[in-house]
C-alpha cells in the first residue's frame, strides 16, 4: 500500500465502473438490435438504428476498457477467466463483428439489406446472451490451478449460466425498448411502450430467478445474503428493486417518456450492486481475491493517473455527443 491507499480496491471499483458504464450505454443499443425482428417496417428500423448510430462505437469502447483494464490491473484474473470463458467470449466477439458492421453495411446495399438487418439483430442477441452466460459462468466459479484455468472448454455451460444469459437478454431488451420510447413518437413509440412493459415483466422475473438461484451455487453466497446479521445489509437491495419496479410499471402506464429508461437503468444498478455483494472481495469467486490478482502498485498507480485525468474528459465529451444528437429521431430528415 502506498500512503495507506488500497490501490487494488480502487481498481476493482474502476473496472466495475467501466463494466457498468458498458452495460448502461451498450445495453440499450444491443437491446435496439434485439427488437429489430419485432419491427419489420423499414422506416421503423431506420429510425431505430439511427437512434444509436452516432453513439454505439463510444458505447462499445467501455467493453474494451473493461477488458484492457482487467489485463492491466488484474492480469492474473484476466489470464484465468478468459480461457475459462473461451466459447462465450468467442461467440460474443463474432456477434459484435456482425452487429457492428451492420451499422454501415445496411445503408450501402438494397439487395442485401435484409441480411444485414438479420446480422444486426442476431449479433445483438448473441452478444447479450454470451455476456450473460459469461457472467453466470464466473459467478458459479471456475477451476484454478497454479495460476492457470484448470477446467475444460464446456465448463461454463450450466443451467445457471443459461439463466443469466437469458436474464441479460431480456434486461437489455428492456433498456432498448425504454430508450426507443425516448427517441420516437407516434405509432412506433406506442409499440415501444408495449415492448417495454413486456421487457420490464420479464426482467423482473429474471432478476427474481437469478437471485433465487445464486445462494444455492455456493455456501458462501448463502451465508452472505441470507444469514443473520448479513441480511440486514443485503435486504435493502431486493426491497429497492421492488420499489423501482413499481415506479417503472407506473411510468410505463402513465406514458412518462424519460422516466422508464432511467428506472430500468436503476434496476441494472441494483442488480449490479447485488453482484458486488456476491463477489467481494473475490475476482475469481472462491479462488482469487482482488489483492492476489493485482498487478504491482507501480502498474496500478501509473494507470490510475490516466484514469483520474481521462475518465472525466471522456465522460464530458461523451455527454456532449449525446447532447448533439438529443431529442427525437426525425424519420424524414435523415441524420444530418
Amino acid at each position: 500500500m502506498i500512503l495507506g491507499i488500497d490501490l487494488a480496491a480502487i481498481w476493482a471499483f474502476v473496472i466495475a465502473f467501466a463494466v457498468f458504464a458498458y452495460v448502461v450505454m451498450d445495453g440499450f443499443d444491443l437491446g435496439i438490435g434485439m427488437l429489430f425482428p419485432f419491427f419489420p417496417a423499414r422506416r421503423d428500423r431506420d429510425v431505430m438504428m439511427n437512434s444509436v448510430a452516432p453513439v454505439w462505437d463510444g458505447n462499445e469502447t467501455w467493453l474494451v476498457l473493461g477488458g484492457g483494464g482487467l489485463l492491466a490491473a488484474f492480469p492474473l484474473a484476466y489470464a484465468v477467466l478468459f480461457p475459462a470463458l473461451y466459447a462465450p467470449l468467442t461467440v460474443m466477439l463474432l456477434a459484435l463483428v456482425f452487429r457492428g458492421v451492420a451499422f454501415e453495411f445496411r445503408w450501402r446495399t438494397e439487395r442485401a439489406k435484409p441480411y444485414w438487418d438479420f446480422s444486426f439483430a442476431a449479433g445483438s442477441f448473441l452478444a447479450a446472451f454470451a455476456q450473460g452466460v459469461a457472467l453466470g459462468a464466473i459467478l458459479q466459479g471456475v477451476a484454478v490451478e497454479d495460476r492457470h484455468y484448470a477446467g475444460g472448454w464446456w465448463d461454463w455451460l450450466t443451467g445457471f449460466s443459461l439463466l443469466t444469459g437469458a436474464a441479460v437478454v431480456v434486461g437489455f431488451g428492456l433498456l432498448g425498448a425504454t430508450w426507443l420510447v425516448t427517441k420516437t413518437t407516434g405509432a412506433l413509440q406506442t409499440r415501444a411502450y408495449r415492448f417495454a412493459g413486456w421487457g420490464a415483466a420479464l426482467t423482473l422475473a429474471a432478476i427474481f430467478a437469478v437471485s433465487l438461484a445464486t445462494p444455492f451455487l455456493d455456501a458462501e453466497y448463502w451465508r452472505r445474503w441470507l444469514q443473520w446479521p448479513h441480511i440486514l445489509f443485503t435486504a435493502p437491495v431486493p426491497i429497492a428493486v421492488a420499489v423501482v419496479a413499481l415506479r417503472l410499471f407506473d411510468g410505463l402506464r402513465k406514458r412518462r417518456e424519460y422516466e422508464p429508461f432511467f428506472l430500468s437503468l436503476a434496476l441494472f444498478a441494483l442488480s449490479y450492486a447485488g453482484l458486488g455483494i456476491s463477489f467481494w472481495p473475490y475476482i475469481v469467486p472462491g479462488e482469487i481475491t482482488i489483492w492476489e490478482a493485482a498487478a504491482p502498485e507501480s502498474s496500478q498507480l501509473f494507470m490510475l493517473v490516466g484514469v483520474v485525468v481521462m475518465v472525466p474528459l471522456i465522460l464530458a465529451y461523451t455527454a456532449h455527443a449525446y447532447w448533439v444528437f438529443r431529442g427525437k429521431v426525425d424519420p424524414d430528415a435523415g441524420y444530418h
Partner: protein
Amino acid sequence: MIPEVTDALLLARVQFAFTIAFHIIFPAFTIGLASYLAVLEALWLRTRREVFLDLFKYWLKIFAITFGMGVVSGVVMAYQFGTNWSVFSDKTGPVLGPLMAYEVLTAFFLEAGFLGVMLFGMNRVGKGLHFFATLMVAIGTFVSAFWILSVNSWMQTPTGYAINADGQFVPADWIEVIFNPSFPYRLVHMVLAAYLTTALVVGAVGALHLLRDNRDEASGIMFSMAMWMATLVAPLQVLAGDLHGLNTLEHQPAKVMAMEGHFRSYPDGAPLYLLGIPDEAAGVLRYPLAIPGGSSLILKHDPSAPLAGLDSIPREDWPPVAIVFWSFRIMVGMGILMLLLGAVSLVARLRGRLYRAPLLHRFALLMGPAGFVAVLAGWVTTEVGRQPFTVYGLLRTAESVSPLGTPAVAASLVAFVIVYFIVFSAGTFYILRLMRRPPQPHEPGPKEGAPTRAAGITPAAAIASGRTLEPGEGRP
C-alpha cells in the same frame, strides 16, 4: 528445456496471425485517411471551394465503413490476448496492460466520442466544431498507433522491467518501457506506411476516374495530392526503413540474419542476397543471386565489415527463415515500386502532364493495394522474425499460450475465418462500389437521404448512389 510444439499452439498462432493481419489492414488505411479528411476539411474551410467538401464527404463514407471494420476486428484483439495467450497476459500484463489501457483512455474513446459528430453532425454543430471533431478523430488514430506500437516494440526490445517472484514482468521504469529502443523507429516506419497506404488508395481512385475523364476536377485534385505524398514520403520511408533495420541489427540480430538469408557468418564482408531459396534444414541459401559485400555495406557502411550469421545462434532460437526472407523482399519490392511511382509522377507533373498521362494513371491504379501488401509483408517480417519468442529473448511463444485443448482453438479458428471472410469481403465490396463512382458535386454524406422519404417505398440511398452525371456536370 524447449517446450514441445503442440497442435493447439500452432492453431493459436494461426488464429492470432489471421485476426491481426485482417485487423492491421483497417488502421493502416484509417490512420492516413483520417488525416487526409482533416486536410480536406481544412482546405474547404479556408478556400470555401465546394470541391473540397465533395471530396471530404466522398472519402468520409469510405472512412466510415473502414473504421467500423477496424473497430470490430480490434475488439477481438483486446480479448484474444486473454483467451488464447493467457500465460503471456499473466506474465506481461503488469507492463503491457497499462499501455493498452492508456490506448483505450486516450485514443479509442477520443475516436469513438467524436466519430458520431464527424459522420452525422455536419448540420447539427457549427463548422468549427465539426472540424474539431474531425481533428480529434485524426489525432485519436495517431495516439492509438503510438501506444500499440510501443506495446509491440517492447515485445521486440524489452527494457525498463524487472521480474517478480511469480515470474511476471513488472515495470521498473515507465519511460524505458514506453520508449524502448525499437519504438521510435517502428512508430515512424508504421505511420509513414499508413500515410503511403492511404495515398496509394486515394491516388488509385483518382487515377481510375481520370482515365475515364481527365478533366474531372475532384479526381484531379485527389490524384495530385496523392502523388505528392508518394513523391515526398516514399523516399522518407526508405530512409526510415533503413534506420529501423540498423536498430534491428543492434537488438534482434537473428531477425536480420533471416531477412538477409545469412545462414553462415561472413568475417570478410557479407553479400547482399537479392534472391535465393532458403533451405532451413540444410542451413543454406540455394540458388543465390548476390551482390558481394552489399549487406555489410548497407548494415555496417563498409563492404568488408564482418557480419555474424545464423550459425552463431542455437537452432532453437532461429526464427522461421524462409517466411522472414520472402516477406522482407515483398515489402522492399513494394517500396521500390512506390519510389518509382513518386518519381514518374513528379516528372509528369513537372512536364505539366499529370492529368493527361494514361500510362501513369494505369500504374497508379495498379499500385492501389501496394501499401496494404507492403504493410502486411512488413509486419510478417518483424513478427515472424521475433519468433520463437513473444517477448524477445525472454518468453517463448510455446510458453505463452493458454492451457486450451486443440478442439477449442480449432473451432474458434474456423469460426473466425468464416466470419471474417463473409463480413470483410462484403465491406471491401461496398468500399469498391463507392470508389467506382467519382465524387459528385454536392456529394451526399454517410447517411443523407438514407432513411426513406415516404412510407418506405423510395430507396433514396440507391437513387443517390446510382445517380449519373449530366453532360457537362462536374467539370471545372
